[in-house]
């Protein structure tokens, strides 16, 4: 029996935002035996069970959390993280990544399969789940590789991985270059009603580019990667998706970064194709200009783009074109990042500060409101990966994030639980602090106790 069984948790006086259930009001939440029992006014709850106020009920212990002035939302979901296990445990492990996730308010994450070796069969998927159970912090899902060894040649065992609980497939870090292989993957996946996610990057166009191809790559003397590398593959994939029977397989474009990609997605959605996409904080907050001092913490793939692309992404968010906000949390050691631009690895570690960054990028300038933001971090990603999460529905497993929307704090990488500190936001002041993270009815993170 779960040690949590029999325990009850009452979150009172908070402002509850639960987009899936169209809740956006001040109310209270009762959690019992890991599940949501009631989302409503405390008066009615207490009237029926007066013992709640006293902290006991039916002989069990009731923990009361006063959420006055706080936002109480379904546990946040980040459908794009890299936990580096197996293979690069010095950068991150499933345990350290999970600890970082709950500190960032995430009760569910989806690991990308580009580990060493990649997650490409049933046992690999089970390995991730086993490590996650042991870590006991956040729910950890994983995607499996589309192709064996992420080499883009032969299909990996999507069926077995799917049965083992993989929530989608991607060769992330790399796009599937061969259109015939990608078409085969989409066709084959029709059997399993899963999502095929793509890191859109045509390597022949991207070349050896380490930053956006543009004014800054020219004056910095670095090989550039044109946005066309992303757009060409995305456009190609959309044509492939048209060959697929409706209602079978879904296509998801990962970390889109250009105005051109936004237009391709807009057109695809207009045609009613089963296409979704995601965006990251760095593509909303940082431009190619950040690379001007050769700080490799700004080296990320897809690369940071010019201002006009940021504007297009924000407009897409305002229009509801972007389906999920993710971190693409990509931890790397300082020693790996203290290198020349041609030698350093791509990636930004961002799980622990993502929420504040989204507030800065999207809420403060009025692009979306809190319910809009929460929807993109809960209900929508849950739907894309097909998990029963992201809502505070009676009887469902109780994952909750409590946020202080007004608390301002300074991002300090030295306080990260992540093993890696490759984060260019160090020292930034942001608003919107995760106060408590509840996973399966259990408090797994509290800002007070750390």
């Amino acid at each position, binding site marked *: 029996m779960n040690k949590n069984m029999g325990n009850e948790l009452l979150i009172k006086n908070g402002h509850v935002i639960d987009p899936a259930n169209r809740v956006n009001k001040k109310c209270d939440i009762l959690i019992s035996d890991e599940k949501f029992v009631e989302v409503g006014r405390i008066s009615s709850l207490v009237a029926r069970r007066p013992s709640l106020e006293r902290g006991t009920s039916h002989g069990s212990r009731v923990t009361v959390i006063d959420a006055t002035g706080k936002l109480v939302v379904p546990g946040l979901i980040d459908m794009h993280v890299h936990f580096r296990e197996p293979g690069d445990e010095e950068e991150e492990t499933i345990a350290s990544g999970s600890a970082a996730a709950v500190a960032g308010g995430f009760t569910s994450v989806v690991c990308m399969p580009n580990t060493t070796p990649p997650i490409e069969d049933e046992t690999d998927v089970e390995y991730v789940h086993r490590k996650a159970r042991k870590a006991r912090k956040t729910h950890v899902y994983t995607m499996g590789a589309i192709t064996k060894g992420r080499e883009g040649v032969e299909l990996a065992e999507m069926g077995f991985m799917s049965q083992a609980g993989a929530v989608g497939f991607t060769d992330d870090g790399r796009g599937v270059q061969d259109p015939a292989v990608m078409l085969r993957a989409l066709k084959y996946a029709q059997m399993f009603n899963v999502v095929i996610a793509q890191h859109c990057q045509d390597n022949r166009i991207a070349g050896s580019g380490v930053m956006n191809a*543009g004014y800054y790559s020219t004056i910095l*003397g670095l090989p550039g990667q044109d946005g066309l590398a992303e757009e060409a593959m995305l456009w190609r994939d959309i044509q492939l998706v048209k060959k697929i029977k409706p209602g079978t397989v879904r296509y998801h474009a990962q970390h889109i970064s250009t105005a051109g990609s936004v237009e391709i997605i807009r057109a695809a959605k207009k045609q009613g194709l089963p296409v979704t996409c995601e965006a990251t904080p760095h593509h909303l907050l940082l431009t190619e200009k950040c690379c001007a001092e050769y700080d490799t913490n700004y080296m990320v793939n897809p690369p940071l783009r010019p201002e006009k692309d940021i504007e297009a992404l924000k407009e897409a968010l305002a229009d509801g074109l972007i389906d999920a906000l993710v971190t693409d949390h990509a931890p790397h050691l300082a*020693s790996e990042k*203290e*290198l020349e631009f041609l*030698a350093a690895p791509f990636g930004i570690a961002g799980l622990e500060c993502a929420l504040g960054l989204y507030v800065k990028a999207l809420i403060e300038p009025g692009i979306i409101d809190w319910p809009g933001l929460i929807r993109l971090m809960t209900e929508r990603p849950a739907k894309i990966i097909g998990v029963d999460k992201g809502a505070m529905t009676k009887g469902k497993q109780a994952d909750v994030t409590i946020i202080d929307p007004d608390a301002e704090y300074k991002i300090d990488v030295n306080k990260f639980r992540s093993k890696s500190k490759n984060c260019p936001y160090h020292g930034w002041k942001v608003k919107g602090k995760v106060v408590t993270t509840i996973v399966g009815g259990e408090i797994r993170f509290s800002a007070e106790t750390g």
Partner: protein
Amino acid sequence: MSNKQKIENDIGHPFIEWKRKHLLGLRELSAEEITYILDTASGFEQLSARAVKKAPTLRGKLVVNLFFEDSTRTRNSFALAASRLSADVVEFTKKDSSVSKGETLLDTARNLEAMGIDIVVIRHNAGGAPTLLSKYINACVVNAGDGYCEHPTQGLLDVYTIRKLRGTLKGLKIAIVGDITHSRVARSDLWAMTKLGAEVTFVGPPTLLPPKIEQLPVKISYSLDDVIEKVDVINMLRIQFERLGGNPFPSVREYSHYFGLTVERMKRAKPDILVMHPGPINRGLEIESEVADGKNSVILQQVTNGVAVRMAVLFLVNQAAAQQAGQTL
């Protein structure tokens, strides 16, 4: 004679305070700073003409030539410049700078620093490598070419050569011809030449022009024939086969046809045009031998001037470092 006077005697002009202990690129320098380096170099050129070609300015200082790419002329030019200033020179050549095959750049530099070096002259295949070093080590860093970002001493010696022969760069029209995308010389030249008042045109096939080039202070032409008659100076870049990648032009034959500086083309050029080339020359490819060795060619003067310019740079960065360390001259 005071120390200051001795230095003024060596450099041949009044002594001002130089604040930069690194020379990473010319983009960040002002016209005044560039002019000051050129003036300083001019003094050192006169020194080289003396019977005793040495100044004691860097005596006891250790200069490391940290070269991760092939180089003969730049490396030797720096070595010569350092020895004329009485510095000790250590050669450190490491052709393969790939991190996967050994020590990182920073570790290499930190090791050298532990041996007490004062100035690192670095050439590296990655743009920004000298900037990276300058952030992590205390020694002065002089960029001897980083990827296709900058080659500041080449840029300086190019403008030095032009200034010496023409008095000024103001109003001059200069063409730089060839593979602009992969050329650090083109970039350093552009910054130095435009800051000193010249008008620069990059000439090459569109496949060898970098992105957003129109945002730089430069004119663009795909036709050497359109440009050849108008320019006062032409700088022919070497086709760097090792950097090209892909197939930016169909054949060497066709490239030479459109962009080679031939005797035929020279007939249409201004009679006093200066023909430059950063070397090494691919004879018959970007430039015909008769032109490279002809009366308009200043290619060997560039090499000669390179030593004086590098003496000036070593001298000035050392001066800035001494200043920052609180030492007086």
